């Protein structure tokens, strides 16, 4: 009876049933006692109740049998079905049953034996013989008296045959007094009283002669009888006809009643009483034994059935908590910690059940705690996943064999591969076709092979797609099963370093502009002054020298001034004038401007009509396009079939819109070692280049919140891509930077 708690209904039902059974049996018991009491008091009443008593007992036996059969059927069914606790119940019932039935049977058999022998002992042969002898003795003693009185009566009757009526009366009176008879009377025909003498003076009539007496004297025969009286006395009634001769017509007869002496009568009555009692008991011997046997058997049956039923009932009650415990344990095994068992009692079993309930309570709490902790961990994991996904820093967790367990999106973006499906795979298996990832994996492998668990270094990855500088930190992470994992955190600091370099160059340029530009003018003015003042007064030969020298000074100063101006241009950060204009139109204008410059170069335009206008500083964007076109045209110098392409494309990342301008040529392309630094000032592979054109492009693009990349086309030639936000709000929005990062990854 175990579920998540035991219902009150299932608990109440057996209790009511038990109470009903107890009341029923108590009623039957009280009824039986009342019947017994009544039977002892009133045997007549009892005889009427006999069938009911028998029926009641039979009903009791049948009811017990039915209950027992039901219990045993249920027990066998449970045993076969391997119901928990059924074997223990069966064993307990067997033990209880044996313990109860064996003594009952012993007592039963002993009682039967005792009763048989006890009843038999009442009827010894000697007793019977003694009684018979006593009876014969009593009869003999009485017979003497009877014969004596009978003979005396006969003699008296014969002697009165010829006597006169007065003599008869006198003789009767005298004889009665002489013999001590109670009554003496002479009757004639038709029971006519002729003479009578009574001992009791109050009585006047003799007692009525019995029929058999009259019949016998009518046949002229003497009569005698010994008649027991109610008080234990004996009367001897004798009668004799006056004559036995039937030929004589004399119907008179004498009746005399004598009393047996008191002592003899008492002794005879005692013998009679004993004989009668013994006879009655002897007649009852077998029925009595059968009754005892039947009664005992019925009692045994009732007791045995009740005992076995009680054994089953008790065993089931005893085993019930164990069954509950088994079911409860199974429920707990299935994860149902809400199981509560009913407390059976306050004994050890109750303590056990209490402990079980306490245990399930603690387990439930522990599971709730574990669930809560799991939820917390899952929330933390989700939060970490979100953080990892939002991080621009790459995070990769690998084991000693470089098998990936965690990798965020930024890691894939930095390493130029998609690591979203890399979980469970080894990093070296993902390096095919990705030179940057291969270098990264090789760097990790070298450090792990050297046994270095925790380190922080800058990794310089140089691939065809460009140079990439990673600040990489590795931390060992102990795993749950003793395996050591590594958390590798890395960030692409290429841009940062570039920005630092840019800032440094800007400072250099500003100082150069400030420190160099100032003395140049006095130098030039001094040279021109020297020329004007001394050239005319000097001899021609010296004048020529002076003139050549001053000219050289002025030219070089002017050259230096241009250089300083360029530096100044690079360093200064004028205020931008943002307007909305057509980028495609501007690209067309720039192309038209440079077409006449070199007719050999084919300038192609491929413009995306979706870009109707961008918000930017038009002059500076024109400078970007000018510098890029100039850079490309210089690269096409000496190239057969030079071709220059200017493309615009509209891109959208989330809410942000971008215009991408790509300028590519079919020239020699960028030198690989310079590829990562093409936007640095004074980095150029051209003999006539200042090295500031692309640096200025980069500076202007970044001022617009854009980005510029350079690489080589697979079919040959350089390619520079400029990404500019279409709207000014995109440029200033914080979120836009992230979206620009996404866009950057898409573009790359």
């Amino acid at each position, binding site marked *: 009876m175990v579920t998540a708690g035991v219902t009150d209904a299932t608990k109440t039902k057996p209790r009511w049933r038990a109470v009903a059974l107890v009341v029923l049996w108590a009623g039957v018991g009280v009824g039986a006692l009342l019947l017994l009491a009544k039977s002892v008091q009133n045997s007549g009443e009892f005889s009427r109740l006999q069938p009911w008593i028998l029926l009641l007992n039979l009903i009791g036996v049948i009811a017990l049998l039915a209950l027992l059969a039901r219990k045993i059927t249920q027990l066998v069914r449970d045993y076969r079905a391997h119901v928990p606790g059924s074997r223990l119940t069966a064993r307990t019932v067997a033990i209880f049953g044996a313990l109860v039935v064996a003594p009952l049977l012993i007592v039963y058999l002993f009682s039967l034996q005792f009763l048989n022998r006890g009843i038999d002992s009442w009827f010894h042969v000697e007793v019977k013989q003694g009684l018979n002898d006593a009876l014969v003795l009593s009869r003999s003693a*009485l017979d003497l008296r009877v014969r004596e009185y009978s003979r005396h009566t006969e003699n008296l009757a014969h002697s009165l045959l010829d006597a006169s009526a007065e003599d008869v009366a006198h003789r009767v009176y005298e004889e009665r007094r002489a013999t001590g008879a109670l009554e003496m009377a002479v009757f004639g025909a038709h029971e006519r009283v002729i003479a009578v003498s009574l001992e009791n003076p109050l009585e006047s009539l003799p007692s009525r002669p019995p029929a058999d007496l009259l019949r016998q004297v009518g046949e002229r025969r003497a009569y005698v009888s010994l008649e027991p009286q109610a008080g234990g006395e004996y009367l001897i009634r004798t009668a004799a006809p006056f004559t036995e001769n039937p030929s004589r017509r004399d119907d008179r007869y004498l009746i005399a009643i004598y009393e047996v002496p008191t002592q003899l009568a008492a002794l005879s009555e005692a013998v009679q009483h004993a004989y009668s009692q013994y006879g009655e008991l002897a007649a009852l011997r077998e029925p009595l034994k059968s*009754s005892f046997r039947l009664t005992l058997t019925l009692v045994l049956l009732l007791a045995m059935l009740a005992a076995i039923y009680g054994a089953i009932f008790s065993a089931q009650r005893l085993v019930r908590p164990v069954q509950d415990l088994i079911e409860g344990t199974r429920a707990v095994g299935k994860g149902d910690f809400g199981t509560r068992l009913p407390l059976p009692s306050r004994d050890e079993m109750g303590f056990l059940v209490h402990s079980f309930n306490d245990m399930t309570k603690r387990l439930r709490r522990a599971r709730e705690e574990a669930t809560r902790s799991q939820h917390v961990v899952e929330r933390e994991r989700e939060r970490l996943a979100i953080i990892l996904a939002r991080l621009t820093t790459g995070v990769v967790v690998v084991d000693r064999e470089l098998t990936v367990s965690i990798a965020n999106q930024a890691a894939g973006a930095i390493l130029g591969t998609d690591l979203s499906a890399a979980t469970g795979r080894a990093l070296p298996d993902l390096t095919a076709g990705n030179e940057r990832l291969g270098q990264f994996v090789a760097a990790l492998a070298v450090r792990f092979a050297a046994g270095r668990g925790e380190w922080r270094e800058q990794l310089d990855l140089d691939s065809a797609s460009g140079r990439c500088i990673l600040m990489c930190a590795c931390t060992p992470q102990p795993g749950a099963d003793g395996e050591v994992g590594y958390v590798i955190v890395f960030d692409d600091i290429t841009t940062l370093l570039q920005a630092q370099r840019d800032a440094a160059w800007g400072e250099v340029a500003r100082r150069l502009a400030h420190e160099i530009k100032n003395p140049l003018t006095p130098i030039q003015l001094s040279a021109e002054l020297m020329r004007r003042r001394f050239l005319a007064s000097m001899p021609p030969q010296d004048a020529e020298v002076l003139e050549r020298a001053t000219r050289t000074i002025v030219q070089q100063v002017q050259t230096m001034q241009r250089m300083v101006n360029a530096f100044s241009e690079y360093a200064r950060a004028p205020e931008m004038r943002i307007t909305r204009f057509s980028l495609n139109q501007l690209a067309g204008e720039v192309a038209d401007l440079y077409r006449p410059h070199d007719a050999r170069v084919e300038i192609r335009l491929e413009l995306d009509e979706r870009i109707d206008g961008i918000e930017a500083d038009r002059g500076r964007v024109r400078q970007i396009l000018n510098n890029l076109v100039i850079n490309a045209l210089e690269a096409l110098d000496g190239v057969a079939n030079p071709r220059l392409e200017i493309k615009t494309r509209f891109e959208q990342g989330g809410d942000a819109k971008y215009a991408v301008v790509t300028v590519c040529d079919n020239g020699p392309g960028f030198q690989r070692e310079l590829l990562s630094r093409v936007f640095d000032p004074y980095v150029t592979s051209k003999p006539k280049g200042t090295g500031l054109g692309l640096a200025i492009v980069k500076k202007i693009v970044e001022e617009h919140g854009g980005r510029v990349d350079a690489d080589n086309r697979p079919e040959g030639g350089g390619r520079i891509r400029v990404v500019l936000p279409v709207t000014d709000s995109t440029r200033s929005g914080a979120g836009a930077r992230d979206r620009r990062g996404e866009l950057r990854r898409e573009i790359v």
Partner: protein
Amino acid sequence: MLRAGQFIPRWVLSSLILAACAPVAYADALDGVLQVRSAYVSVEGGVFSLHARIDYPVNPVIRDALHDGVTLTVELDTRIERERRFWFNADVVELMLRRELDYHAVSDRYLVRDVRTGNQKSFATLEEALTDLGTVEDWPVLTEPQLAEGSYRISVRAGVRRGRLPASLRALMFWTDDWHRVSEWYTWLLPV
């Protein structure tokens, strides 16, 4: 839910109950005629007296039992009811005349004794004794003041059983005692 009837067939139950009642319904020892042969009531001086003739069974078993010392108790139940049309009859009188029949071994005579009065008569033969027992004369059963309007039904039934058993023994022996029989009721309307 299983019921008792599923375990014990009805015929078995019926047989058991019949077997329980068998000793009451039939008795081997008292085999023979037991009946109220005739009965009538005479009224004299406002007293209703019952007169009846009853046949009691006679057989060697009874004779032997008497000779062994067994006492037979002979009872005559008399019941007078007032008839009611729409309900059970009302009991007016219920009387029992109880007498005992013994064999007196010392005197070789049969004794008939009235249990209530203690009067005793002796007979030389069993037949004479039974004849005396089967003759009821002038047994006052009712007086006129006990009667009201309506009709009355008087019933007489004779019974024989082995008597003088101690009550405790009788309690034990009730189901093996086949010395108990009663006659059918002899019923007639009381002449009021």
